């Protein structure tokens, strides 16, 4: 099952295909490397995902 996380209160399901997206002005890049980690660019978030 695809994982999900919150950013700025919105839920995002990990697309896991390496694409990048803008959501509310922030850039998302999904990981294609199985671990379903989302890199968040231009953000100071202290993500707790391991």
């Amino acid at each position: 099952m695809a994982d999900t996380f919150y950013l700025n209160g919105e839920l995002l399901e990990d697309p896991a295909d390496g694409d990048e997206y803008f959501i509310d002005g922030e850039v998302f890049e999904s990981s294609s490397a199985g671990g379903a980690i989302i890199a968040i660019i231009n953000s100071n978030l202290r993500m707790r995902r391991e």
Partner: protein
Amino acid sequence: MADYYVGSGTDTSPFDTWAKAATWLGNIAHPLTAADTVYIASNHEDAHDYSANELISAVGGVSTPVVVISVTDATTNYAKATANQINTYQDAGSNYILFSENWAFYGVQMSSKGIIYFDGNTDTSQYFEDCTLKVGSGSSITFLDSGKYNFKDCAFDFTNDSGASANKAFSLGYGNIVIEGGSIANGSNRTGNIFADFTTGGTARISGLDCTSLTNATTPELFGYSTGVRSQILFENCKMAATHVLYDYNTVIKTGSVTMVNCSAGDNPTQFLYASKEGHLRDSTVTRTGGPEVQGIAFSWGGETATTGIVTTAACSASSPLVTPWINTNIATAGTYDVAVYIQNTNSDFNELQVWLEVQYQDDATSQFYTLASDREPTITGTPSSQTDDTGSTWSTSYTYHQKLEIQGLTVGTKGIMRGRVLIGLASIAGTRHFYISPKLVVTDG
């Protein structure tokens, strides 16, 4: 554009060498103009006895603030402060510290006998990085006017409190405020609402703030305000003490909203809360099989506790609905799709003017235009049908009425993000109705 110095100098105008360095920042503040730089010795304790509430103001363009940098004494090498470089705490009077106009501070430490004010105006910017702000006993960090205020990796220190105080710690009444990183220090001195006064329609984003010193969890600890929230407020990824209270559900919200994401003592990535004047929802462990997971943890949207559902107020209606945050998903290939969100409750079926789904999607391969589709009763004066019965879902705790909010036959013209949200237009839904939303867009071929 000039350089000035504050330290153990002779306090001689124009303060343009370390030898002539001013002994307190306010002494040179008024001549400062855009793009000036002030170097302030990291070990310099401000001993000036402020005779009045002397403003610390500067004249600077928005893009060229006056820059104040804490440095190793007699150098221009950055060094975080080890002394109270701006200090009214040692005054005989109860003098506050106030910043007006455009500033950027790096590594500076300040200690106030009273409030620390940020008093910008419509177009001003104030930036603080790696700074320590010690507010006076029982006083607050207070924003007096509109403007842009950014704090990066700053410590908000309540060490000056003479004892426990129920007073608010932050009064964020005005402006667009961003607090990223940093910490609240000696927060155990505060026993009431920490953040309050979001009264005038600005924005506040508090992200990655270490709040573990807030250990008095007997009252609403992080946010609560009974007079009327009109700002858009987001707390995200803030670390809390082991025992804590995030939100006072008696908070009165007017035109604003409060969102909290992942603010907890440990790894609790499903933690979520959203509140507006129409109602509130938060993460719940009453979940639907096949629903969303974060780090393998299933969750849904419910109410205040694990055993209550989403709550709406008397102000909620089809014309002023409680609107959930967006739920984003990825559409990998163009095509025709059906999109659904699953819900349940214990009283009766919801109709299409009480609860409905909206979906935003790209229906055109050559345009960036997103189309908004809805399964609300299309005519506001029409007779709404019940939302579709759902007979296939399994919930961890099942209530009688299972339904599916669905929009069929959406023609998606290109791959990309699709997002949906649920709108709740029924007043006074109680938590005991056990209304839960499984916040996942279930997309199938249409």
